[in-house]
């Protein structure tokens, strides 16, 4: 039992990433503010990145670092476009609760 606390293996990093992903997923499912949902998506992307890097270290293959780099760039682009959409929606409706965005519902 103390071994698990005092000897950190790859499993620890993978479990940490999985818990982070779970928290982000719970945020996307539970919250209704669009900004919080965007932040939760960022958390999930970071969890995926952490898994990539842990496996990269585990298998001794550096190409996952390149992959994580590209994921970071795509996340930045996604945040920029997502926040622009949030601003545009707020300008029209004075509100960014996703429950109220039902115009596209048929």
């Amino acid at each position: 039992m103390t071994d698990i606390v005092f000897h950190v293996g790859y499993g620890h990093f993978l479990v940490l990433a999985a818990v982070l992903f779970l928290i982000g997923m719970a945020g996307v499912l539970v919250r209704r503010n669009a900004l919080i949902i965007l932040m939760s998506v960022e958390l999930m992307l970071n969890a995926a990145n952490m898994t990539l890097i842990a496996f990269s270290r585990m298998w001794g293959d550096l190409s996952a670092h390149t992959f994580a780099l590209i994921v970071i760039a795509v996340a930045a682009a996604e945040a920029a476009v997502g926040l622009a959409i949030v601003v545009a929606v707020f300008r029209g409706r004075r509100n960014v609760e996703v429950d109220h965005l039902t115009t596209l519902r048929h």
Partner: protein
Amino acid sequence: MIAARKAAAIAVLAGLALAFVLACFARPAVAQPAGETGDAPAQVQQPAPQAPQGYVSGHTIHEDKYESHETGMALLFWAFAAATVGGALFVITRRNLIAAVMGMVGSFLGIAAVYMMLYASFLAVLQMLVYAGAIMVLFVFVIMILNRPEDEPVAPTGRAGTALGALSILYIVGRLAMLLMHVHPPAGEAAVEAARKQLDDTRSVIAGIKDSPDAARHRELAEANEAAAELQYAKVASLSVPPPTREGYEWGSVRAVGTDLFDGGLFPFEAISILLLVAVVGAIAIARPLKDDTTGHAGELP
């Protein structure tokens, strides 16, 4: 109703914590490295072991890289993991958006530290620059533009919706907890020593094999065994200093990542440059105030 929703949220968070604890403690403490549950190494048949005559200490890769600085590193890992998970929980539980962003920044700093523990130094710096710098500023700006706390923090409406949401989240958490129990267990120092010894033995067998009658077959077997043992060693020695890359650069440094990026990842690199350009133009085009903004309807093309 609000109390019920708060109870549901607390139940979800407790489930997350329980999954983490279960995944950490569901395994026996020390993994047995040699014959371990039918992964690769023990399956390869040991070639007829001869007296290791020309014993060569073949530790060209991992030699003396393992130091026993594990305990301090482990405590640091727990601290950074607490920062990461605590910040993430802050994000999804606060009603105040600025508080949520600050929690997100704390979480990202913890993630950068965890990257550093995985010897991804370049990515750790990049994480701080891009996330804790740029994306955080972007979020704070947008929140300052539209600062409205939301009405209630939990989305599902109605008793049936609440029950359905709670059930599905419980199902997902349970499935993930079951999955996490199968994660490779953390290995102790004894396991690292045993794996290292196995790697050493295999290499000594390879060194002593050249006088055997059918040397070719034995060498083949022994080399497969060496690869498996090396993999096993790399698996258990997680916090040790990683070996340098093929080109001889330090693991995770700017040189190593840059060499890999511009060697095999040149096309994705150019592609994300175009993607970022399009994203910048698109963000400006979407968020720009329209000419007839007085009507109060954004979103139509000008």
